[in-house]
């Protein structure tokens, strides 16, 4: 230390005389603060950014080769060459969206920063909005390079889906947030021991989401379950466009309705879990 506190305070008194805090009570500034904290983290670590792009790109390359093989052996694929690559890219929007939300939350636990946030003016809803924004940023970083690689390697452009792509993207992202909310609520209740759920939960719904095959392939009772998920109508809607049937509004509305319901349930469960954490004093001590 180069100075005594008394020397420091003398200097500071001079500063303080012409230093007045300018305050804002804007929610946007608090949301921006959390975004800023995560963007600083990303900026400082290029492996994190590379990791976000790595899996979607590898998945896309793998399914690209499978598509090329099946094109010569399957009339189904030959009708719409981009069906598998588009499916894998859309599935990754859901996966990255959920993971981006959950990992941004886990980041606060790993760095023991949740207590700082809980004691600040940041409201729980503002915190959740910032996690959603981070999820959007992480998803775009992860998916966009893979979409360009698909064009470059296989001449398949997911952007050919047109405007419906935006609707599919937003639906899948919201579904990812709903699952992320449930995962974070669980972690708040049981601690970091449940962190692996951030990676695993999504695969529970993969078999009945009709990602690579139509819902009608599933047994009857699973079909009912599949139509209770917002994912199945999205992938059916994607296939309808790629097979020339055009945009199916009923499938979109089906997916959107379910999404809004699940998102509301996810929010309620997270906020309830946060309330229980406040009751039990877990916010400062949450860990393994």
């Amino acid at each position, binding site marked *: *230390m*180069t*100075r*005594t*506190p*008394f020397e*420091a*305070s003398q*200097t*500071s*008194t001079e*500063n*303080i005389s012409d*230093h007045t*805090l*300018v*305050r*804002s*009570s*804007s929610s946007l*500034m*608090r949301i*921006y*603060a*959390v975004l*800023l*904290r995560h963007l*600083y*983290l990303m900026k*400082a*670590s290029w492996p994190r950014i590379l990791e976000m792009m790595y899996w979607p790109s590898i998945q896309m390359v793998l399914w690209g080769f499978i598509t090329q093989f099946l094109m010569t052996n399957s009339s189904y694929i030959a009708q719409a060459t981009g069906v598998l690559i588009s499916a894998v890219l859309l599935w990754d929007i859901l996966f990255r969206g959920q993971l981006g939300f959950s990992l941004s939350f886990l980041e606060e636990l790993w*760095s*023991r*920063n*949740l*207590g*700082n*946030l*809980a*004691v*600040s*003016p*940041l*409201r729980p809803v503002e915190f959740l909005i910032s996690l959603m924004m981070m999820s959007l940023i992480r998803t775009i970083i992860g998916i966009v390079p893979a979409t360009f690689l698909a064009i470059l390697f296989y001449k398949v452009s997911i952007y050919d889906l047109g405007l419906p792509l935006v609707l599919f993207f937003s639906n899948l992202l919201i579904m990812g947030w709903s699952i992320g909310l449930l995962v974070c609520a669980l972690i708040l209740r049981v601690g970091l021991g449940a962190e692996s759920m951030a990676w695993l939960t999504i695969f529970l719904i993969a078999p009945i989401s009709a990602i690579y095959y139509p819902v009608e392939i599933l047994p009857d009772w699973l079909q009912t379950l599949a139509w209770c998920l917002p994912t199945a109508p999205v992938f059916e809607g994607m296939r309808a466009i790629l097979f020339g049937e055009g945009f199916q509004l009923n499938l979109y509305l089906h997916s959107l309705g379910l999404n809004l319901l699940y998102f509301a349930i996810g929010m309620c469960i997270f906020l309830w879990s946060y*309330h229980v954490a*406040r*009751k*039990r*004093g877990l*916010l*400062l*001590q949450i860990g393994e």
Partner: protein
Amino acid sequence: MIQPSIDVKNLSKAYDDVLAVKSISFSIKAGETVALLGGNGAGKTTTISMLLGILLPTAGSIRLLGEDIIENRFRVMHRINFSSPYVDLPRRLTVRQNLMFFCRLYGIVNAKERIMVLCEELDLYEFIDRPTGSLSSGQKTRVSVAKALVNEPEILLLDEPTASLDPDTADWVRSYLKDYQSRKQAAILLASHNMSEVERICDNVLMMKLGRIVDQGTPSELLHRYSRTNLEEVFLDIARDRASPDIQDGDPPRDNLELGDL
């Protein structure tokens, strides 16, 4: 009558069958520094957590700067800050990035200016662009203090602010806090195990044991009451149930008295 900065009435916290804090009451005025003393498990951290609004009490009321913290904590959180060994600053962020993040979180518009002032006051310049995780304990403590003061809080809650610091750094932090308090007339509540720290910077002391405030007063009052020469001996008397000579059977319990009443 001047409204106290911190006003706690009949505050209790129960975890299932265990009563961690038992109907405590106290108030702290602006410009006053009060210590919360007690052994491990006495209820100090539980009390501070309830004051911060991150632990819901089972019963009682807490008013900070006139607002009910249980119902309306977001009306005052921008005027309060804290430091606790239970939280860290994000380790991979540099000191500057951390301070910028907390400035924005507390709604400080002129953040760069504020960070410069804190750097000047707490001598942070030499490591301002280093990751917080790479700093020594003393440097980290100075950054934690800077974080706790980023919004110029009117109430500062400190849980063991000088734990695990060398005597020189601990002394520096105490001097700085005292200086800040006298400049800003902040109300400071600190939980500590360091008795000399308490004697040096605190106007009043709340002695906790098994979730209750068992005694309170100024450091000199407590020394006089227990006929001791330092607070450590008073602490041991209380911890080992050696009652002060002037506490007689039938005296009213001290835990519901205003500090000024003593």
